[in-house]
């Protein structure tokens, strides 16, 4: 189990994976807009996306759990 946290406050602009997808470490999994810049967020480990806890367009705070990889 590995929780991917928001590194900074911002807004989720795009989800690039869905639950059940297999991901490799350092794959892009979503885009987070912060300070008017769109930033890729990468998978923290190899595994399967268990749960996505945010929606596109949602504002997130620093350290908020974005999704869970298992």
């Amino acid at each position, binding site marked *: 189990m590995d929780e991917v946290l928001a590194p900074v406050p911002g807004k989720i602009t795009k989800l690039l994976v869905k639950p059940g997808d297999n991901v490799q470490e350092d794959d892009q999994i979503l885009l987070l807009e912060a*300070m008017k*810049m769109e930033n890729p967020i990468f998978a923290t480990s190899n595994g399967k996306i268990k749960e996505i806890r945010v929606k596109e367009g949602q504002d997130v705070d620093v350290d908020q759990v974005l999704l869970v990889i298992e």
Partner: protein
Amino acid sequence: MLEAILNGLGGLIAGFQALALDWRSMVMLIVGGILLYLGIKKDCEPLLLVPIGFGCILVNVPLTDLMAKDGFLRIIYDAGVDTELFPLLIFIGIGAMTDFGPVLAQPSIFLLGAAGQFGIFLTLLLALFFGFTKLEAVSIGIIGACDGPTAIYVTSKYAPHLLGAVSVAAYSYMALVPVIQPPIMRAMTTQAERQTVMKYTARPVSKTTKMLFPLVITVLGGLIAPKGLPLLGTIMLGNLMRESGVVSRLTKASENEIANVVTLFLGLCIGATMSGAAFLRPQTLIILGLGFLAICLDTVCGVLFAKGMRVLSGGKINPLIGAAGISAFPMAARVVQREGFKYNKKSFLLMQAMGANAGGQIGSVIAAAVMLSVLAGMGVIS
């Protein structure tokens, strides 16, 4: 009768004859065309390069008098550039656009905004070495602020004959920050340093702090460097309007309508200073070279300073963020964020870099203010 008609028709080709005799105008028409190309096709600061490029073309068509007394470009120049009014009006807009929150949340990062200004002073010394006068050297050094309006303000006041070269250098290098900085950042750091993950641990900044900040900086800065108060005061006025939240109409006008109108006029005027005789001189090339060096030196000093902070903090600071301590906002911070990702996908330097970058924005203005006040103290300027 026939002779009169021929003479009259001759008037229509006089311009072509003058152009054929004047290689400088010819070259400058091409330079104007290149600036337009860069702005329109290459998306390189189009808001500036389109009016600058067109102004350059206008002023280099022979036998015209747009920059002569009562010419329309001269009227705009005298009203806004000669009086230093345009850069100050733009500063109100910049203040209204800038969120100093990331600086206030991480005060130590603010120091990086000071380190990024060393290039100004090193370049000033180099310009003196190349035989420029003191006032010219100040205007050239200020390119290292990486801050267009500051460079224009200082140059129009103290070395107006260099305005074209200095502003073209300042704006083109600003646009080239994403190209110039990364190789220097790489060369100055080790792989392990570049991979350092910095945790974003900003504490929230209260609205009161955000409103006090512009006021304190204005008064304190004005007392230390009275010569720079027009620069500091206008940027902080814009910022106070933004943070107060009660004059959104004025804030919006400052960052949109006023800034846009002034950018158009300012760009045209800068282009209009680029007449062949004034621009095509060896000193223009030296200025372009020194300006380039200034921005490289800024990056070097910023990264070195961040390396020092890394040592003091026990390895917690990623020295790449030092490169963001210049005024090119928010380009420099984005460059840092992108470079950080290249070396470590889990590294997220954006907020720290934005802090350093906003610090650099104030830093460049303060550096200019301090320099002017020191020069006034030395009796070089009045």
